[in-house]
């Protein structure tokens, strides 16, 4: 009898998990009826008919907002232990914490001043009748 280490047990668990998944998938394929229709083959979108491609471009501004959020998220994480040991550190700790917050606020002010918080708005384009007619014609030609 070979003794198993803790990691050995995990290894056996992983192997069993993989084997189980493979066998069930294979059994499913073996016994299920196979009658595909057009509706069934469509991409599932909560019962609605899919509109357009799912590869939509996100506005790059979302990432800037996410980055700013991340900074203030981390700030909170750092402030919790600071608040817990606040009594021990006294005025000194308070000053250090304030300096930390000021530097973060400076970063925020910098982004604001440099215009990184401005959302790039699309220029409003009033629709022109001729253009609409032309585009409708070209679409009809494609069909």
């Amino acid at each position: 009898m070979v003794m198993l280490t803790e990691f050995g047990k995990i290894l056996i668990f992983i192997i069993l998990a993989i084997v189980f998944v493979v066998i069930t998938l294979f059994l499913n394929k073996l016994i299920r009826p196979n009658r595909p229709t057009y509706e069934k083959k469509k991409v599932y979108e909560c019962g609605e008919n899919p509109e357009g491609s799912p590869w939509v471009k996100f506005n790059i501004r979302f990432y800037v907002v996410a980055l700013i959020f991340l900074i203030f998220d981390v700030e909170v994480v750092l402030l919790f232990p600071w608040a817990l040991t606040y009594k021990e550190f006294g005025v000194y700790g308070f000053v250090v914490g304030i300096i930390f917050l000021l530097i973060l606020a400076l970063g925020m002010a910098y982004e604001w001043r440099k215009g990184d918080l401005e959302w790039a708005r699309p220029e409003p384009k009033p629709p022109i009748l001729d253009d609409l007619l032309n585009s409708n014609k070209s679409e009809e030609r494609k069909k």
Partner: protein
Amino acid sequence: MELANLYQSINLIIPEIVLSIALIVLVIADLIFHTNKKIIPFIAGTGILVTAIFVINQFNYIGFAFSTATHTARSFGMLAVDSFGVFFKLIVIVSSFIIVLLSLASDEIQKTTDRIGEYYALIYGMILGMFFMITATDLILIYLSLELLSLSSYVLAGFTKLRDRNSEASLKYLLYGAVSSGLMLFGISLVYGLTGSTNLYIINTLIQNPHINLFTLSFATILIFAGIGYKISSAPFHFWTPDVYEGAPITITAFLSVASKAAGFALLIRFVKTVFVSYETNEGFWSLIEVFDWQSILVVISILTMTLGNFSALWQNNLKRMLAYSSIAHAGYMLLGLVVLSNQGLIAILIYFMIYLLMNLGAFLVVMLIANKINSEEIDDYNGLGFTSPLLSVSLAIFLISLTGLPPTAGFIGKLYLFIALVDAKMIAVAIIALLNSVVSLYYYVRVLKHMYLVKATASTPSIIPSTSNAILLLVLVVPVLIFGVYFQPLVEFAKDCIVILGI
């Protein structure tokens, strides 16, 4: 961690604090002076000079900052303040000050006036990262400082956005950097798993235990070396260097080739000395712990680095790219000083770095001044420049001869001390290989001179006369290269004072 200990540690990181304050002042000035950006380089230069004063104050001081363990008699900190660190900090400070002056003279940088505040702020980020890298004795801090340095330099490499090559440099740098820092982090996690500590000194005592898993330890240290080797652009991790050096703005190329490399070397030397050396013999040789043969690995890496660097440089037609390969080769030479594992080798590295700073920054300065005028770094465009612009050509000639290592320039002294250290350590074969490499390097350095002096100047050859301030800066770099080639005693004495690495 005790409070009194913390207060005391603050005193030890005053240079870093001053740098941070200067960085904040820079950012605020950038916000306030929206239209007039003339004051920003001035603030940047002043901040660096003030930091230099506090760095020099640390000279001859020895001690740990931010000690973590208070229950044991010997408490090791996260930072070690010692003369060795001060030396490399001074190298970083001097080169950053020259880079600020270079940026003022560079057309490339001056075209981006509206973002100049960011430029200097990012340079400050790099300096701060390098300062912590030089003094760090804790794996976590090493990794953090490495990332601080890298992230700032990724942005700076693509700063000007004038050409496609610029963004290419930035992206390549980022990708290679991400891979190597990932490898390094993996190595750090393995070392932590083996020893249960991230402090280099504690790791040193723990790996003297014979029961340690040798294979894992060697694997982990090679992974950590991948991260450091990427910073000093040594052989298997050097692929980013030519592309990044060619694409980045020339001031940043010069900065990466000197300061960033210096910080990487400081980290590597401290890492090897504190982790793998058990004691120092009376003759100044370092005795390696019998776990892992760092010496032969370093020999192979350094020979590979210099050979690859020198032979690739032979085919280059772009001067910036050629200097990139030459800086790889120089990293190889400097690694030889570490290979001998002795105080003598360390002295040789320090001497080499002081000289390398002067000659490499000088060479880049000349290339930049010429590129300002003719907008090209191709060697073919240097034809006949020797006759039309004598000051620049003569200085470039001196810098290139010094980079080759021929007397009477300072480069000769640097190589001489390295080879003496090698011979004293009875590594004559390695010394001969390095010598042959120098001969190879002579070809591509002198090729530039051939284009400048042996091709007759035509009517279209531009005459480039630098402005007075640039000429003074050039002379400040040229004259020491010549003087230290003859009168090098002060360099050697200074290097001897700076070899104190805080050990066990």
